[in-house]
């Protein structure tokens, strides 16, 4: 009996994760599916979809979305891979700092990030006016599709960078040496050996970028102007249908969901074709460069990092500026901070409280599902893994709405509670942890676990003693992303929050809406600084044995 129990640990885990996924994701989403094919009276209809596909306006929105997400992904891959290669393979003293900066640029807090771009490059932005004033340059407009793409690329290329540099650092150097030995040139080796080997990680990053680009609505809202994408459409439809049953918004959401699920299937198909096993006992050593070459590489790298970090810099600088209502005026002070620490403490407290609990759940559930989907591959585990990705790709407003509908009726009455916020954060941000952990697992050889089992350690204990420590860099790096995304989460929070459960990102949004930029910048600075502190602590703990990601 006991033997049987041991062998079934993973079957039990399968059931547990299945229940988790079913209750917190599939059930709420089914409400969205049902809404999309019903009228507001509850009768079955396809009218919502017919409306979408018969009007040129909506089809244009679909086209715009694909264009923006596609171009963003392409550029992010090029930029992210190039940066990852340069920083993992060559020895720069600034490496660690640059790494942190790149991660930081991921976290441009919602609204404020795009708002910073307007402050700098907008029609009356700082750079735009000064360029004209000092040099007579006319800056291209950042409004419209190219503006969205450039803001997205700066914000999202770090996904590709992080995933790729993790994988590049764990390729066994003998593979590249073998290629070199076979007489291939550096360039040939890069494109035929190195990049194909890390292609699963590049793809994972690219998928992240694409989906973020599809579901982000803050940026296109602010700088898209008349250039509408699906996410803004969903949001606007939802807002205008508020009080009704949001059937059309549900239908548009369904289209986004289907789009993203197709993309996920594509990635899965690719991974199944290329499932490499590597034990990196000898990770590649960074190459030393001569001063001239180093400088030549460092300049573009620094340029990218600085541009990506600009929103943060702008936010931090303006948080110390004196404000007069919506206007920044001359002089510096801590006035904005005084205001938020007296008037908005609850949001700050809630943000940390919710995100830490969500993080704990994400680490546990994320490690388990990553393991299930890589090591116990079956239709069921693939389905669980897939379902976990869904809430991430859905615009946050829709996930929030789904949770409200699902959990504000018998037997649950959870709307307005901290629980529903934490649940929403967990299901929305867990894919970072899962993806990163399973990426690490995929590069780990099965025989290491078998060796442990063989030495008399049960599969369950082996998971904790061998598998988990080895995939920990993946879990931790994913969890950092999850956490950062959680404290910045706006789109679902804004639907779920009440006065009691307000978070910093919602407060920032409210302040921006109230034209109180100083307090918004101060809070955004707190978010940025918490992330910096997290990264420093992480660096200490890992003692450099684990790269930042």
């Amino acid at each position, binding site marked *: 009996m006991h033997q049987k129990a041991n062998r079934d640990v993973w079957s039990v885990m399968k059931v547990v994760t299945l229940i988790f996924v079913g209750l917190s994701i599939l059930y709420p989403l089914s409400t969205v599916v049902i809404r999309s094919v019903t009228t507001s009276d509850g009768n079955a209809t396809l009218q919502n979809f017919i409306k979408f596909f018969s009007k040129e306006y909506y089809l244009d929105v679909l086209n715009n979305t694909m264009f923006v997400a596609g171009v963003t992904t392409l550029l992010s891959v090029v930029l992210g891979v190039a940066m990852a290669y340069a920083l993992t393979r060559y020895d720069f003293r600034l490496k660690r700092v640059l790494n942190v900066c790149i991660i930081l640029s991921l976290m441009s807090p919602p609204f404020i990030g795009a708002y910073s771009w307007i402050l700098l490059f907008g029609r009356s932005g700082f750079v735009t006016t000064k360029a004209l004033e000092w040099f007579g340059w006319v800056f291209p407009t950042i409004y419209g599709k190219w503006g969205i793409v450039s803001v997205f690329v700066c914000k999202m290329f770090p996904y590709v960078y992080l995933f790729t540099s993790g994988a590049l650092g764990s390729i066994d150097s003998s593979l590249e040496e073998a290629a070199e030995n076979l007489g291939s040139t550096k360039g040939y080796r890069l494109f035929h050996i190195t990049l194909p080997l890390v292609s699963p990680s590049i793809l994972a990053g690219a998928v992240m970028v694409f989906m973020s680009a599809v579901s982000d609505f803050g940026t296109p809202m602010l700088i898209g102007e008349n250039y509408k994408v699906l996410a803004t459409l969903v949001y606007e439809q939802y807002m205008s249908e508020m009080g009704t049953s949001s059937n059309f918004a549900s239908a548009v959401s369904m289209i986004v969901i289907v789009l993203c699920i197709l993309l996920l299937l594509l990635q899965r198909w690719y991974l199944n074709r290329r499932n490499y096993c590597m034990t990196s006992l000898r990770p590649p050593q960074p190459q030393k460069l001569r001063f001239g070459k180093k400088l030549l590489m460092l300049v573009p790298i620094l340029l990218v990092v600085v541009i990506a970090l600009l929103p943060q810099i702008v936010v931090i600088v303006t948080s110390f500026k004196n404000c007069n209502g919506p206007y920044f005026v001359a002089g510096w002070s801590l006035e904005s901070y005084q205001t938020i620490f007296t008037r908005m403490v609850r949001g700050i407290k809630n943000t940390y409280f919710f995100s830490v609990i969500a993080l704990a759940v994400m680490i546990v559930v994320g490690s388990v599902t990553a393991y299930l989907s890589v090591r116990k591959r079956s239709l069921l585990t693939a389905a669980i893994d897939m379902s976990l990705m869904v809430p991430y790709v859905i615009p946050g407003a829709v996930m929030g709405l789904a949770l409200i509908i699902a959990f504000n009726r018998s037997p649950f009455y959870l709307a307005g509670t901290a629980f529903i916020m934490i649940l929403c954060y967990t299901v929305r941000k867990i894919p970072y942890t899962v993806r990163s952990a399973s990426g690490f697992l995929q590069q780990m*050889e099965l*025989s290491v676990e*078998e*060796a442990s*089992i063989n030495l008399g350690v049960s599969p369950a*204990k082996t998971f904790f003693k061998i598998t988990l420590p080895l995939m920990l860099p993946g879990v931790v790096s994913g969890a950092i992303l999850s956490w950062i995304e959680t404290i910045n989460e706006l789109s679902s929070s804004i639907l779920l929050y009440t006065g009691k459960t307000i978070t910093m990102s919602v407060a920032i949004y409210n302040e921006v809406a109230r034209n109180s930029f100083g307090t918004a910048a101060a809070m955004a600075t707190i978010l940025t600084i918490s992330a910096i502190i997290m990264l420093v602590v992480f660096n200490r703990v890992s003692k450099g044995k684990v790269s930042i990601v």
Partner: protein
Amino acid sequence: MVGNEEKQMSHQVSICNVVKRFGDFTAVDGVSLEIKEGEFFTLLGPSGCGKTTLLRAIAGFNQINEGEIRFSDRVINQIPAHKRDIGMVFQNYAIFPHLTVRENVAYGLKAKKYPRKEIDAKVTQALEMVQIAALKDRKPSELSGGQQQRVALARAFIIEPGVLLMDEPLSNLDAKLRVQMRSVIKKLQRRLGITTIYVTHDQEEALAISDRIAVMKAGHIMQVGAPEEVYRHPQNRFVSGFIGTTNFIESAAETNGGGIALLKMEDYTVRARVKRPVSGKALVSARPEQLFFGEEGIAGRISLSTFLGDFVEYEVQTDDGQTLLLNEYTKDVSGVRPDGERCHVRFDADSIAVIDPETEEVVSAFGI
């Protein structure tokens, strides 16, 4: 480990009609083997013959479809891998990369909740036995292939398993190290007396290291026997060709009532004792060292002579177009024959294997 404590009995391993399928492919097709207690037993065969699949089934990483595996009369089919009391050395070593050498080796004992002091003592002793005591605090990434191999070895035998499994443990090492590790493994196994099942595709390694060898092909056992036996008395064409080097010489055959086959190769005729009659055609399997030059025999010309120190290897082109390899020991002769020289090649009919080409089985009586 050795001597100072009451040693756990090593297992006898019985494999009965084991079948393992992967979808439509039958990797192991009804294999039965009896492995004696303390024996060094090798599964030898070309890649894809099912040897690793069988080993993994014994380890418990594969569930078999049919048959039974027993350790000393205890059926283990249903016992999960971690309770089988087995040590295993993996082809890629599978060292835990996040643990030091010492922690790797101590891993199994810790799992069995040995007292700390005892673990320390045993680990020190085990590391000394594989001569890596000085490396005990290193991380696996700081070790060479041979050193990693020694860690894997120590980690497997320190738990005093009833059975030790080794899956091509030397295949990632260079030739010199391979020969060196081969003797390390063999001496260790003798000293510990652990029943060992060893998988390799290298016939020379199998001959060197094993007490007995099972030669496998396409999921079947072709022959089981001591190294000398499978080398000298192969039971079929596959084994005679796979183990060592051999010449297959075509001949016309005729068997008389007394169990004597008359084998004709051109002008050369020999009489070989056979256990079953063979008629029409027969294949003679003769190793290079079983062939020698004579006044008469299979006529041919030396096409290449290679001086290798203790012996000279001759390649002979026979008049009917076959190529034969012949080894002549330097100490037995005065000089090297020049290329192009006419010669006659002979052999001792009682030492060679006669193969019935229909069944591919060896019909020689081998001195019975």
